[in-house]
Structures are given as structure tokens and as C-alpha cells.
């Protein structure tokens, strides 16, 4: 083993020992285990104030927090002991919120770009000047091009208030939320078209399941505290875990059956399972009789999907598909077919989501223990809203007659296409609020072209990101630890336990630093300057929260007195959900889509290329955490997973440095290392999403690893939902150095 002590260091230490004061004068007060200040931090529990009411936003799950504060400085975040959701636990990212709060690279003041979009030079300006500029530029766009000249890319709870303003009161239909087209859109619409009920990753009653089926979901790499607790409780209670993934994921590692499926073929696999269950009458006949519609049509349409045919298409053994189907049938209805969340994979995703909903229906796993069960969340919260204007412009997809089952908003590709071509109308103003379209939307060049042709671009964010480089005016938002914000509601995480509900508004743990302002302030000031002052629904976020809480006879003061979380008796979430399962959907067929769940094959990688798959690191929330010094210390690169046989063929070894080049000859701007493993199929490679930030203002995250989004240039748009398939690009590995 190599010695870390260099000769020079050692000699220096020896000389210091010689020069130091006689040690005999030092009296160690070495009480059991205690070491002395000031060289040792006293601990977060010593001389600190505990502030309640925090609600995390390191991801969207919103765990409830307390903050430990000493001398006005937040030292540590912990789970709120009163929480019946995350309890005292929070994940790595939750713990690292402190480092986001005090990140020296954070946006601090309003900034004006006196350089170019994409190569900014920032000049600090006053809020007055910033707001005046934003309002007058947006108004100028509206005056010249009409309201439809305005577009918006919002993300996160901070953007809901301004999004409502621009969508409802200003009235532009050009709103593109990352959480739809690049995330859960296909899933939501696929379920809606099948059960007319919106799905959620929160609806899997895993603690009480006998079988948990994960299609692509990778608990352990994807962490939400109570969600992961549910999963672990299910395993502890003896649930059988089936994981469908081309990669031996963290969940596959805990599974009983790992289905190492060929990427893109999940729907074929699901159809074969359903066909087998129907053919062998192993489905929930009673439930389907009562709740199903069009089973006969589906049965007829999918009967081609024999185990053997699917085995060939999916590249998994027929016997394994049968084993899975039998396991599901033997344990129905107590089966959790997890809906997943990020579902924009291959451009055939609506059909996969629809198939999952149909399979859940075949097993009768709605509303029953261990199945698809919406928790009985507290109701009755009050509301406030920006008023709707008289504008009711059609969305771009309505004008184009595309994506009839699109989620709300506009698919970003239509928005970009319209902006670049000016057809059917020009889009010249852009508001980006909490979203980073450079690293969320495929084909970055197209996004950049869209921005370049704008008359005005404004960004509001907490951190500099790759998109903020393209702003004309850049405004500093409050982080989730510095502002009041929307209310988190929920129930105890194990639905089978005593029924309880909780209400927890996000409350600030510390005052906003520098000149940061929250989204209610910024939006209202813009509204006043744009002539909508009389439409403002609330003056402060605090007022908004109190309006909502008043609906349940609560207030911020009362919740503070209740340690940040109001808890009340809950309701039994189990029981007939009164759904109709549309195995055949006539409306789909009317719009020219298949009426029954249908497999749409995807292209295979060309010779010498691998399909580029991406996923999550357990310590990151995509790009959002890429400058967090604590999290980057844990994981600061996204090594490319390469099958060991392929590595041998390419002459690549573990740790080699590589660049990636895609089928369109786009080369990654940066490099990464190779992770050689038998735990991935031979036809694909895998990296963590969100790395490789191009913005040099991110002094920790800049150019770390490879930006997978830069390599996703080929678009595969889901025909029903308009969401993106982002796993249809192929890459080669090129050794560097």
C-alpha cells in the first residue's frame, strides 16, 4: 500500500513537533469520547435554534424539514420529526440543501446581458431597471406580434404563479412545461385514455403488494424518501420484485426476476403477458366483467403476441415472460404495477403507459391493497387564481391537428418549429422560469436557434444554468429555503396503517440573501408594469398560503404553532374506484390512433453504435444539483456503462477516458470515463443525465462528465401525446488520450 505521507511532509511534521510548546503543559480533558472546540465543530444540536416549516425542493417529492440555525446561518437540514411522510430522514440531496443555499455561484442580483446570448457579459442592475426592461420588452412583443408572440418555459413550484399569469391573464397558449413533454406526459395521457383517471408514481401501494413490477423505474438510483420507504417495506413484507430494465439497476439488484429487455420493446412484452393471461383465463374475470370495456377487441388484436414472438422481439426467454405472467396472476389483485414517472423514452410511450394501465385492469389491481391506490389526501384547501382573459387562442397542436391526446401546454418541438419558421405565427418573446431547456429538450441547436431569433429573453432562476447564458435579463429567485410556497399535502406513507393526513405549506427557514425575490413579487411587478395591475390575485405568497389554508380553518401562524405540519385523521383509501378500463378506446381510433394497446417497434442501433440510455444518479436531481459541492464530492462524473464483452471488443478498459459521437456525427463537448460491467446489455450504453454543464459560471459543475442531452439530436415524438422519445439516439465511444 502506498504511503500518503511524503518525505517532505514528514520532515515538516517532525520539525513542528520540535518547535511546539512543551506538551506536558497541555492537559487533555478527554472525557469519554469528547473532543474539544474550537478545532471540532460543536454539532448541529449545540447552541442552535430549530426552525420548522421547511419543505424540500431538491427534487419534486417535497419532504418536510427542520433547519438547525446558529448565528443566523443554516447549518443542517433534517427531516421534521413530526412528519408522517419522510419522518426524520432525508436523502443526500435533501441534506445538501445547505450547500445550494450558500452556493457562492448562486444568482444574487438582477443582471443585464451586455454581451451576446450564449456568451453573456453580466452587468448588475437594479430591480427597478430589470423589471422595467422585462415589462417593456414583453409589451413591445405583444404590441407587434400579439399575445401569441410570447412563449414560456416554466418548471417547478416557483413557476406556477407566473405561469398562471402568462397563460390565463395574458393569454398565451405557448407554454411548455418540462415535466410534461420531457417527462410524464406520455404516462399521464396513456392512463387517462385507458382509465380516465390521472396516474401518479404515488399510487403504488407497495408496502402491501405481493408483487411489485417496475418497468424502467430504478429505486436506489431514483430516491424519494417515503416512496423508497414504501418500496423497502414491500420487500420486507415479502413482495416479489420484478424489474424490467436493459441494465442491472439498483432495483434489479434487489429483484427476484430481472427482465433484461431489449430497449424500446416493453409494450410487446406487456402485450404478450396480457395475451397469455387472457388466453389462459388467468386474469381477474370478475373485475373485468364489472369494469372492463372492449376486452374482446383487445384480446383479438393482441393474440399475435405469443410468448415466443415477444421473446424474440424483446430478446428475453419465453419461459421468463410466462413466469412473470403466472406470478402476477397468482398474486392478483395485490400487484403494484408502478406507473413510473419520466416516460418519454422511445416515442412509443403512450402505448406502453396504456398497456400498463390495461394490465393493471386485467389483474383487477385498482383500489385494492397492494395495487394502484390513490392516497386519500386532505381536501378543502382554498384557492386563488389569476383571472382568465378573453383570449382563447388555439394551441399549436390544435392548429396543426397533431397530438390529440397531448397534455396541457405546447410540446416544445412545435413551439421551436413555430419560432424558427415564424409559421403559423412569430414567437418573439421568451420567459424561462426555473427550467433549463438546453439540458431538457432534445436537439440543443434547435433550442439555441429558437432563442437567437427572439426579440427578448428573460430568465428567472436560483442558479446559473446552461439556459441562463441565453438571457437578456436574468433575475435571482429565492430558493425553497428562503420563501413561502405551495402546500404539500399527503397521508401516512403506509396506506394500511392508521389513516392520517398532513398539511405542510413551505415556509422559509432563513431570510432571502442578497437581492433575491420570490416569484409572486416578480410576477406582480411585471403585471403592474404590463397593465395587469388590477388583476393581481395576491400581494404576497404568504397571503396566498393563508387563503388556501383558510379553506381548512388553518393559517400560517397555526401551522407554525403545530411545528410546521398539521396532522389530522384520514380516510380509508381502499375501495372501488369506479373506473372503466377501456381496453379498446373508440376515441383514439377516431383520431387515427390504434384503438387497442399497440406495439410500435423502434429502430435498432446501426453497426458499431450503441443505443444511448440515461437515468439518474442517487445524489443528483438531473442538472439542478450539478454545482452542489457536497453532492459533487460524492459523484462528479457520469461514467458510461459499457457491457464487458463489448469493452473487450473495443479494447476499452475500466476507467478509460472516452468521448461519445452520435449517429448525426455530433460529438460530446467533454469526456467521461468507461464503467465496464456485465450489468448492461450489449446493444446499449448508459449514463447519468444532467452532467456536462457548459456554463462556466458553475465553478463546481462546469464541464464535469458528458451532457447526454447534447447527443440526443434525433427526435422521436410520441404521436398521441407529443412528448419526446429521448432514447432513440445511438453513439460510438472514442477513446481519448
Amino acid at each position, binding site marked *: 500500500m502506498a504511503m500518503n505521507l511524503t518525505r517532505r511532509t514528514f520532515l515538516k511534521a517532525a520539525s513542528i513537533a520540535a518547535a511546539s510548546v512543551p506538551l506536558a503543559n*497541555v492537559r487533555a480533558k478527554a472525557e469519554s*469520547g469528547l473532543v474539544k472546540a474550537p478545532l471540532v465543530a460543536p454539532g448541529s444540536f449545540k447552541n442552535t435554534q430549530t426552525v420548522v416549516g421547511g419543505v424540500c425542493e431538491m427534487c419534486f417529492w417535497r419532504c418536510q424539514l427542520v433547519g438547525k440555525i446558529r448565528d443566523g446561518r443554516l447549518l443542517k437540514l433534517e427531516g421534521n420529526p413530526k412528519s408522517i411522510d419522510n419522518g426524520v430522514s432525508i436523502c443526500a440531496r435533501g441534506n445538501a440543501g445547505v450547500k445550494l443555499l450558500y452556493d457562492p455561484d448562486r444568482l444574487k442580483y438582477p443582471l443585464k446581458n451586455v454581451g451576446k446570448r450564449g456568451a453573456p457579459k453580466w452587468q448588475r442592475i437594479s430591480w427597478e431597471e430589470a423589471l422595467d426592461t422585462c415589462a417593456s420588452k414583453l409589451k413591445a412583443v405583444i404590441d407587434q406580434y400579439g399575445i401569441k408572440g410570447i412563449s414560456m418555459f416554466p418548471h417547478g413550484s416557483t413557476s406556477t404563479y407566473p405561469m398562471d399569469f402568462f397563460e390565463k391573464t395574458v393569454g398565451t397558449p405557448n407554454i411548455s412545461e418540462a415535466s410534461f413533454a420531457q417527462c410524464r406526459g406520455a404516462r399521464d395521457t396513456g392512463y387517462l385514455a385507458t382509465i380516465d383517471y390521472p396516474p401518479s408514481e404515488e399510487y403504488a401501494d407497495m408496502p402491501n403488494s405481493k408483487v411489485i413490477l417496475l418497468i424502467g423505474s430504478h429505486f436506489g438510483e431514483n430516491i424519494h424518501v417515503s416512496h423508497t420507504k414504501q418500496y423497502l417495506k414491500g420487500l420486507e413484507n415479502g413482495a416479489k420484485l420484478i424489474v424490467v430494465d436493459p441494465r442491472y439497476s439498483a432495483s434489479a439488484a434487489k429483484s427476484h426476476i430481472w427482465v433484461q429487455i431489449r430497449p424500446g420493446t416493453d409494450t410487446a412484452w406487456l402485450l404478450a403477458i396480457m395475451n397469455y393471461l387472457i388466453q389462459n383465463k388467468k386474469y381477474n374475470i370478475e373485475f373485468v366483467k364489472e369494469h372492463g370495456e372492449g376486452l374482446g377487441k383487445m384480446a383479438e388484436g393482441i393474440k399475435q403476441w405469443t410468448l415466443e414472438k415477444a421473446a424474440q422481439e424483446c430478446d428475453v426467454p419465453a419461459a421468463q415472460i410466462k413466469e412473470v405472467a403466472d406470478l402476477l396472476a397468482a398474486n392478483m389483485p395485490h400487484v403494484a404495477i408502478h406507473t413510473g414517472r419520466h416516460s418519454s423514452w422511445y416515442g412509443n410511450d403512450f402505448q406502453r403507459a396504456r398497456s400498463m394501465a390495461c394490465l393493471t385492469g386485467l389483474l383487477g389491481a385498482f383500489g385494492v391493497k397492494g395495487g394502484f391506490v390513490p392516497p386519500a389526501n386532505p381536501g378543502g384547501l382554498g384557492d386563488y387564481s389569476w383571472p382568465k382573459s378573453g383570449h382563447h387562442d388555439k394551441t399549436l397542436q390544435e392548429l396543426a391537428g397533431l397530438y390529440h391526446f397531448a397534455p396541457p401546454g405546447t410540446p416544445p418541438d412545435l413551439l421551436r418549429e413555430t419560432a424558427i419558421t415564424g409559421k403559423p405565427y412569430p414567437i418573439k418573446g421568451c420567459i424561462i422560469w426555473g427550467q433549463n431547456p438546453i439540458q431538457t429538450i432534445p436537439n440543443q441547436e434547435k433550442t439555441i436557434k429558437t432563442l437567437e431569433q427572439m426579440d427578448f429573453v428573460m430568465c428567472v432562476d436560483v442558479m446559473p444554468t446552461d439556459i441562463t447564458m441565453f438571457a437578456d435579463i436574468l433575475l435571482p429567485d429565492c430558493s425553497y429555503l428562503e420563501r413561502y410556497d405551495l402546500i404539500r399535502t399527503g397521508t401516512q406513507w403506509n396506506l394500511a396503517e392508521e389513516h392520517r393526513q398532513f398539511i405542510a405549506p413551505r415556509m422559509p427557514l432563513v431570510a432571502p440573501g442578497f437581492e433575491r425575490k420570490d416569484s409572486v413579487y416578480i410576477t406582480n411587478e411585471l403585471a403592474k408594469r404590463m397593465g395587469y395591475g388590477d388583476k393581481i390575485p395576491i400581494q404576497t405568497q404568504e397571503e396566498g398560503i393563508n387563503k388556501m389554508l383558510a379553506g381548512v380553518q388553518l393559517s400560517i401562524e397555526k401551522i407554525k404553532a403545530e411545528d410546521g405540519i398539521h396532522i389530522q385523521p384520514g380516510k380509508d383509501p381502499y375501495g372501488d374506484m369506479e373506473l372503466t378500463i377501456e381496453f379498446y378506446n373508440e376515441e383514439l381510433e377516431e383520431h387515427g390512433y390504434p384503438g387497442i394497446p399497440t406495439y410500435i417497434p423502434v429502430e435498432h442501433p446501426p453497426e458499431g453504435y450503441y443505443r444511448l440510455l440515461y437515468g439518474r444518479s442517487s445524489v443528483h436531481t438531473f442538472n439542478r444539483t450539478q454545482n452542489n459541492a457536497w453532492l459533487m464530492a460524492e*459523484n462528479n462524473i457520469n461514467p458510461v456503462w459499457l457491457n464487458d464483452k463489448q469493452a473487450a471488443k473495443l479494447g476499452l478498459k475500466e476507467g478509460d477516458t472516452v468521448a461519445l459521437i452520435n449517429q448525426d456525427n455530433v460529438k460530446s463537448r467533454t469526456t467521461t470515463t468507461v464503467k465496464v460491467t456485465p450489468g448492461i446489455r450489449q446493444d446499449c450504453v448508459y449514463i447519468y443525465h444532467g452532467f456536462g454543464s457548459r456554463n462556466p459560471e458553475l465553478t463546481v459543475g462546469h464541464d464535469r462528465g458528458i451532457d447526454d442531452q447534447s447527443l440526443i439530436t434525433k427526435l422521436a415524438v410520441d404521436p398521441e401525446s407529443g412528448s419526446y422519445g429521448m432514447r432513440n439516439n445511438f453513439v460510438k465511444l472514442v477513446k481519448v488520450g
Partner: protein
Amino acid sequence: MQYGMVIDIDRCVGCHACVIACKAEWEVPAQYSRDWVHRLGPAITSTGMAYTYYPGLCNHCDSPPCVPACPAEKVNATFKDKKSGKTVTMEIAATWKDPFNGTVQVDRERCIGCGACRDACPYKARYVDEGLKDENSLGKVDKCTYCMPRVAEGLEPACVQTCLARARIFGDLDDPKSEVAQYVKKGAVGLTSKAVQIGPNGRYYGSKKGDMELLMQAAPQEMPKVSLRRSLLTQMSLTAKHQIKEIGLLGLAGALLVKSFQEEEEK
């Protein structure tokens, strides 16, 4: 009493919350860590594919090699057993093993930052924070304390509290009724190898043979070669300081050391 920590790798999901909570609790600089999570695999084991985690921290060993490696001047320290009130006075350097609770602790005030203890640990559980160097030291060593200051207040160790999986269990291994002792009974083992048998009090439990295989492969396979010569010379330099207080002899010691390193390099 011997404090110990069991990590149930069946439950661990590899979220790294333990590492970050520790950093926040003890204000550990971003580039250092008192604990860690390593990903092991996916790799082929005797039972097929496996992929697991090695959440590591100081093992507060029965025979900690870091303790005798410390060259700092020894002082008398009195330890008190909280329960019985019994006291023990013994000579300790800047790192020692507590005679009552079995934890290994550090006195950073007396630490000279030489890194000898860090180098002596086969688990690499210590780091020297060079940012803390002053006129008396090259930095200060740091490691997991099993959160004794928190435990003294009735709190759980920070990593245990934040663990969403309840994969970390802390307690007294000597108490047969404790959860940690129950785990040991069930088969929780320390990360030892043929050459490394120093009685680690961190124990790992996993029901899957493949996972445990990967974990045992991650165990240190050899004891660090802390050369006797080094230790001797360290002692010499300190003895020189105290007994003769003449820089001349220290120079001699230094020269001797340089020579010995040269010899080492020549080999």
C-alpha cells in the same frame, strides 16, 4: 461496552444521505469525508450477477493500528464510565480507544497532522484536513466518532438518523439484547481478510451471497506497511524535542530519515 454499527445491505439503497448528513453535522470540508458509500458491481459472483454498496466508516476496532501509530506526546487522561461512575486514568497520545465505550477518538488540539494514523488504517477511515494547519501542526486529523457528542445528548448518530432505509443500526455490541448484537447473531460480519484482522466493530449484514462476496472483496486485503523505522524516527524526533531540545539532533534525525527513504527508494 463496545459501540458498534451494523449496516444491513439488504436494506441500503445507496442514497449517500449518511455521508452528507455527517458532513453537515460536523462541518466536514466538501473534499473530505468521515464516511463513504462505494458502489460494488454489477459484477458476476458465484451466485450470478450482483450489485451492492459498501457504506463505510471508522470501525472503532478492537485493536486499532491507528492508536499506537500516533507519535504525539502522551498525556494522562481520566475516563469515566457514565453508568457505574467508575474511572480509569491512562496515558494517551492524540488518538486513543475509549476504555468504557470502545470508540476510537481523536484530540485535534494535540494532533500534529503527520498523517501516521491515517496511513495506519487499512480501511482509510481517516483524513488530515490540511486547511487547519497552524504553527503547531500540518493540519488536523479527523474521522468518525460514532457521533459520541450526539449520543451523549440522547440523539442517534447523524448518519443513522437520516437513513431512510433504516439500514444503519447503532448500539452496544456487548449487550446481547441490542439490535446490533441480534444482527451479529444473525450473521453480520466485519470486513476482515486473511491479513486484516483487527476486530472491526462495524458489521455488515446481507442475505444475498453475491452481495456479501462483493463486499468482502472490498475489504482491505493487507495491512498498511507503516514502517517501524518511520514510527521509530517519529518517536526520536519527539524525544529529541523534549529531552534535548536541541535542533541539532532533530537535524540528525531528519538526515537519518532522508537517508532511509533514499534506501527505500533504491530498493
